[in-house]
Every structure is written in structure tokens, then in C-alpha cells.
């Protein structure tokens, strides 16, 4: 389970100006639930994901993951977390098995268990044919499968996907989506970010719409429909963005 509390990230730009990439973000993602962070490019999704995965330190606020505070206990947070993004690389000179084993060891998976776990994952993701090939020789789809295996080798209760389908062909993307569904049925807590409305529509239990670092709306697809009276998620998204602009203008 993830509980984000007032997460804020400020970047100081070259000219000394402050940029609020993520501004006071609070939300919850429960066990067995898929929560989608939806927003255009530059909305602050990746920054938020990076803070949750402890790669970046929040400027203020924090998040609790499986009972561990990411500020005080980042290592425990990472141990309970699987992270996958569209552009995470793999070590091209190692074989798929070596990469997965390396991460398993870093995640403290017992040596005796590593082998059986890899066989299990190879079965699940249909990786037997290329398990002992060097990453360099694999296709994009195969690499993505290795990345998935790498991210769940330690069977984490929380999964974070940062635009995992970006730049992938339709078949590979479909694999990922079905994998995400499997995570949900396995009772994992899933946080997923995307800028593609249709993708969000298809897999989300709950959607958190963020824009310019702030939450515009939070709820299920059905709730959004009811609230706005609209049926298309694109329209709903634009509706929320316009609404916040109007509020901003009024304030000015």
C-alpha cells in the first residue's frame, strides 16, 4: 500500500527560479488496486514516481510504503518495491539470466530460491528461449520481458510502472498490460503512470489526474463520468484542466 502525503519536489533552475515539478501531492493506492497517474508530458508524473522509488528526495512531504517512510527508511521501501519504466536499460554484455540473478542478489533473495524463481518467471513470461543469450542480442520485446522479470524477482508487494509502454510496439505493450492485470489479481498494489487516456481508461481502478505538479481530480472512471456528464476520457481530462485554469484566472 502507498500513502503519499503532501509530496513536493522543487527544482532550482539555472536562472535561480524555483520550479515546482510536484506540488503537494497526496493520494493512496491500496492492495489489489491499480491506480493510474494521468497527465500530459511534464505534468510531474515521472518526478513523483522517482520520489516514490527513492531515486529523488522529496523537497517536502513524504510517502509511506508498506509501513516504511521513504525519507527515513529508503532501503526498506526499495526492498518492497518493483519499478519498471519504458526506458530503463539493461546490462547489454550480460545474459538475461545474469541480469535477473544480479538483481535477485541485491534484493537479498536467497541463493537457493533464485534458480527456481527464475524458472517460474521464465515460464510466466515465456523467456526460456533467450534466458542465456546476451541482452545485446535480444529484441525490444524480449528486453522488456527481462526488465519485467528483473522488477518482480523479489516478489514485491508494490509495483510502480512509469510509462512502461512508451515506445513499445502493440504486442509488447499488450504483454505489459496483461502483466499489470496479473499483479492486481496477485493482490499487489499497482501505481501506473501514463499520458495515454485510453490506456488509463482500460486498466485503472482509480485515476489521479495531475497537471503542472498538482492533483486536478481523483476518482474512478465511473465517478468522473457522473461528475462531468461526459463519456470520453479525453474530454473529461480537458474539462478538468480548463476548470483549474478558470479558478486560476478568477484568483488573479
Amino acid at each position, binding site marked *: 500500500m502507498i500513502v503519499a502525503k503532501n509530496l513536493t519536489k522543487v527544482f532550482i533552475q539555472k536562472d535561480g527560479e524555483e520550479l515546482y515539478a510536484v506540488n503537494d501531492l497526496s493520494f493512496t493506492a491500496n492492495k489489489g488496486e491499480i491506480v493510474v497517474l494521468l497527465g500530459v508530458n511534464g505534468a510531474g508524473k515521472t518526478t513523483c514516481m522517482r520520489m516514490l522509488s*527513492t*531515486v529523488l528526495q522529496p523537497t517536502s512531504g513524504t510517502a509511506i510504503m508498506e509501513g516504511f517512510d521513504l525519507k527515513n527508511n529508503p532501503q526498506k521501501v526499495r526492498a518492497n518495491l518493483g519499478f519498471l519504466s519504458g526506458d530503463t536499460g*539493461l546490462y547489454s554484455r550480460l545474459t538475461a539470466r545474469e541480469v535477473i540473478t544480479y538483481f535477485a542478489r541485491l*534484493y*537479498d533473495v536467497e541463493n537457493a530460491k533464485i534458480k527456481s524463481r527464475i524458472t517460474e518467471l521464465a515460464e510466466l513470461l515465456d523467456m526460456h528461449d533467450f534466458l542465456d543469450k546476451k541482452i545485446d542480442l535480444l529484441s525490444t520485446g524480449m528486453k522488456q520481458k527481462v*526488465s519485467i522479470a528483473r522488477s518482480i524477482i523479489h516478489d514485491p508487494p508494490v509495483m510502480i510502472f512509469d510509462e512502461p509502454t512508451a515506445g513499445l510496439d502493440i504486442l509488447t505493450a499488450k504483454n505489459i498490460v496483461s502483466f499489470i492485470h496479473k499483479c492486481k489479481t496477485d493482490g499487489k498494489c499497482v501505481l501506473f503512470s501514463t499520458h495515454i487516456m485510453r490506456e488509463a481508461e482500460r486498466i485503472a481502478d482509480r485515476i489521479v489526474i495531475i497537471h503542472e505538479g498538482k492533483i486536478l481530480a481523483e476518482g474512478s472512471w465511473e465517478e468522473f463520468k457522473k461528475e462531468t456528464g461526459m463519456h470520453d476520457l479525453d474530454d473529461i481530462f480537458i474539462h478538468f484542466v480548463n476548470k483549474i485554469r478558470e479558478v486560476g484566472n478568477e484568483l488573479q
Partner: protein
Amino acid sequence: MNFNKIFIIYKKELLDLMRDRRTVITSLILPIVLYPLLMIGFSSMMSRQELKLEKQEMVIYVNDNVLNISSVSIEDELKKVENFQIMEEVMIFEKTTFLDLLEENSIQVLIDIQDSVSTSGFQVLNVSVYYNLSNDKSSLAHEKIVDIIKDIEQNLVGERLSKININIEILNAVEIKDENIAPPEKMMSFALGKILPYLLIILTISGASVIASDLVAGEKERGTLETILVSAACRNELVIGKYLTIITMSIVTVLLNLFSMYITFSHIFSQAGQAVDGLQLPLGNFALILLIMLPLITLFSAILLSISTYSRNIKEAHSYQMPLIFGSIMLSMVSFLPGFELNLGFALIPIVNFSLLIRDIMLSNYNMMYLFIVVGSTLVLDIIMVSLSIRLFNNETVLFRTVEEKSLKFWGKQKKDIFSTQFVVIFFLVILFALYYFGSSWQSKELMSGLIKTELLIILLPVILLLRISRSDIKKSLRLNPVKPVNFLLVILAAIPVIILAAIFGQLINLIYPISESYMEAMKNLVTVQERGIWFSIFVIGILPGICEETMFRGYMLNAFRKKGFWPAIVIAAVLFGIFHLDLFRLLPVTLLGIWMGFLALKANSLYLAIFAHALNNCLAIVFVNYSDKIPFLEKLVSEENIPFWYAIPAFLTLYAIFASIKKVNKEIVFEE
């Protein structure tokens, strides 16, 4: 920190590197193959080349103006030499034509024989041997000819002496016999000791640089860094794991280099038949060198890891490594220079210390104390660099540096900020080069007028022009503000403690880096009143630099750096001021002086006070050097004798009190960032 995880990371990195062809070639294969190829190939090529040269035909022209038995014997003897071809005599001899032929290598030697009569009435053959030293063939021919002519001379002298019944052996009054007491091992160590440090340092750094750039910058480039950061390993474990990988690979590289070098040299010497005479390479020395290389390897690894962490990709890492590699090459060459001995000063300069120490170890002639100083000082630097690496790796703005740096374009459509750090640094470098190329040559032509031109044209004018062109408020930018008069009094009071502290500081530096007599003499000359009188000296050396240099450093630059805070701004401007004097011996004292003047300028918010302090300092130097003999206290300061170190205590206390007073006097002035 979990050592098991460090080991997992370390093992993976080694495996990964071992599969990288580039790394394997530069770190493992190159050292093994390089020496045999280089040494054996080179030596056989050399001997073959020499042989070839010996066999080549050499054309010689003899212009004999004497034509007596002795002179003709020269030509006759030359004709007997194999490969010597004596040119037919020409009808009209023109020396310049033959010198041209010599220059274009059509002939190798021109011999011009004249004669004269000595004061005692003997005939002397004047043989001029013209040859071309830039040509191997000509040099070789010259060598042979000189030997032949010496033999002929010997015969001639013999004949003359026998005519008056004197035995030629009378000439052998002194016989010089060269006896080299160095055993062959030592000779070899001497030769190896010069080249080994250079080779080892360069190979270590070049091997480690390839690996280091791959380990972090490479991960950034391949997009694997984020993957590893979200793993359960903590960042310090990652840094240490990677650091150990670089160290291991470097040790292997050095070990292979030493091993390959040892085998190759042994091979060469056994071929040359010297092994029979008991010549052995000093194996123990090689082992000690490997041991003392460890701190240097760890230092290089830490620096290279920091560079790799800072860089966004491998290409960027390579360009940042360039100055380090280039600097190391230059510094490591010190072992080639004669007369450079390891002393306390050199023992504290990185790379230079290792270069000299390795040379001494090869000669089995090293000083244990210096060995410990070299190793100890390197370990201290090592700790600093490793902690820097760890800090960089934990700094997310460095790790995820994505913003493109501003381009080097300054004068575009927009009004550029002449107070940005980047601009100031470039401006400083341009001025520095101008000073080096123009200022130095003006001053070497005529010191005083050169100084005036340098101060006005290279230092003051560019700053004023810059401020005018950028339409900056000159008065505000340079802090041309009125000062409370009491400040001037305080600066005058501070002059004596400042001078005492500077002198003691100079003495301390002199202990570590002894300043040469000639340098002291040159410095003294600079401030000695020349023919134009004391007031002229005070103006050129005292007041003018005060105005011009302060305008640049405490005016323009201090203003540019003020964003960085009160003390950082002062220190940065002072360090640039120190570098600007292009004098290693004065770098520290001048920088300290710069800090004092920076403090005055910012505290009183006025450039005038800094100018006053600067001019006062320079003027006092003139007065001291020229009038010290008339004032007993000054004599002690300027004389060769050292000032007792305890003088520093009252001087420091006085200065501290003046510091506090200046702060108090100007307390209403607020420092604006």
C-alpha cells in the same frame, strides 16, 4: 553498509568489464603485447638501421689548398675507408655551392684544408670539416673523418719530434682512464628509473579512465543507472563496489605492465649477453614499486570515479578526463629531468612525488621518510576524493544532470550578463593570456614602461570597456563609494602585522619549497628604485597596480561573485588574483593579500579602501627594500635572517583586533548577495 552487497556489485562489474572488448584490450592485452613489441621491435630496428647506415656510400669533397705530403695524406687515408667516395676535384672551388650541396645531402662532408704558420714557425694544417648534424649519414661520416685526421696529426707530431730526437711518448704525461663504478644493475636501474615512472603513471591512468567512464557515465548513457538506484542496494554500496572495480582493474594493469616490462628487459639483456656477467633486474624494487603504486591507483580511481559520476555520458566523461590525463603526463615526466631530487616540497606534489620516488626506488636510493610522506599525503587526498565521489553519487542534481549548459555565445541578440560566473572565468582567462603573451614581452623590453602599459591596457582598460559596453552602472558595479576616514587609519595600522605575517608565511613556504637566490634577486630588483627616483617607483609599482588590479579583482570580479556569499566571493576573487601573478612562489601570499583586500572592499562597501591597502602594501615593499638599512627594525624584516615565529602571535592578535574594529566601524553596511 552491507559488504555482501558491495561484493555482489563488484563481481558483476568485473564480469561486465571482462566482456567489454575495449577494456580487455586496453587493460590486459596492451600491457602484455606492448613492451615486447616496443622494445624488441625498436631495438632490432635501431641496430638494423645503424648497420644500413654504415653500409651506405658517403660522398666527401676535399678542397686541399696546401698540397704537401701531410695534407695529401688526409685524402689518401680517406680513400682507404670503405663506403667513402671522394669526389673529383673541380676546376674552380666555390665554397657556397658545396655548402648548398651539403645542406641538400648530395655530399656528406666538405673538408677545406688551409695552412698557417705558428708563432714558433711551425706549419699548421687548418682543416675545416663541414657537416650536417641534422643528418645521420653526415654525422656518421664526420665522426669517422675526425678520428682519421686525429691519427694523422699524431703521426705528424711523431715525425716532428723524432726529427729532434725526442720520443713521442713524452706526450703521454697524463693518461685518462674512465672507470665506471656503477654495477650493471645500477646502470640499468638508472635507465629504467627514468622511463618507468612515466610509463606506469600513464598506463595506470589511461587504463583506469576507460573503466571509470564506463562505470557511472556509461550507466547513465545506457539508462541502467535508474534501474540500479531503485534496487535494494544503497548508494554508498554502489559507489564502493564500483570504486573497488576500478582499483582492481588498475592493479591488474600495473601488475601486467611491470611483469611484461621485467620479462622484456630481462630478455633484451640476456640477448645482449649481459646476463652472463650476473646482470639481474632488481626484482625487489619492482615489488616495492607495485606496493607504493597502490595509494596512487586508489587516488586516480577516486578522481576518475568522481568525473564519471559528474558526467552525463561517456563522451563527456572523456573530455573531463583529458585535463587530468594531460596534466599527469606532464607531471610524470619530471623523472626525465636531471637535477630534480625528491625533497619535502616535491613529496607533497601529487604525481611528481611518485615519479621521483619510483626513480629513486629503481636506484635503491630512496629515503624512507619521503616514502612515508608521499604515501601518506596521497592517502589523505584519497580520502578526500572518495568522500567527494560518495557525495556526488548521493547528489541527485549531479546524478540526473540533464540541463544543457549555456553555450559559449556571449554577444547575441540579448543583453548578456557580464557578471555571470561563466563570463567572468572566460574574461579572466583572456586577460591572463594577454598578460602572458603581451605583458611579459613589454616588461622584458623595458620593465617600467612595460608595467605601465600592462596595468593600463591589459588590466584597467578591458574592465572599463566591458562595463561601458554592457551599459552597467560603473559606480555601483565597482563600489566607488565614500569610506569613513577611520578605515584608512585602521588599514595603516594593519600594515605592520600583515607584513610580519606575510614574511613568516613566506619563511614557512621557503622551508617546504626553497626559493632560489636568483628569484629573490629578481624580486628585489623589481622594487629597487631605478634611475628615475623613488616617486616614479611608488607610482608604477605602488599606486598604479593598486588602482588597476583592484578595479578588476575587487571591483568587477568581487561584484560578479557576490551571489556566492560574502566569504566565497572574497576567496574566489583572491585565488584568481593569486593565479594572475603567474608565479608559483607568490601564489599563496598574494591570495592571502587578496582575501584581506576583498574583506576591506566588501566590509566598507568601497573599492577605495582596497586600492589604498593594495597601494600601501606595494609602497611599503619599496620603502623596505630601499631604506631598510636606515631603519633598524626594518633591516631585520628584510635581511636574510628569519623572523622568530612567535612574532606571528602578536601580529595575528593585532590584526584580529583591526578586523573586529573594521567590522564595527562599518556595521551599518549590509552585504547584498
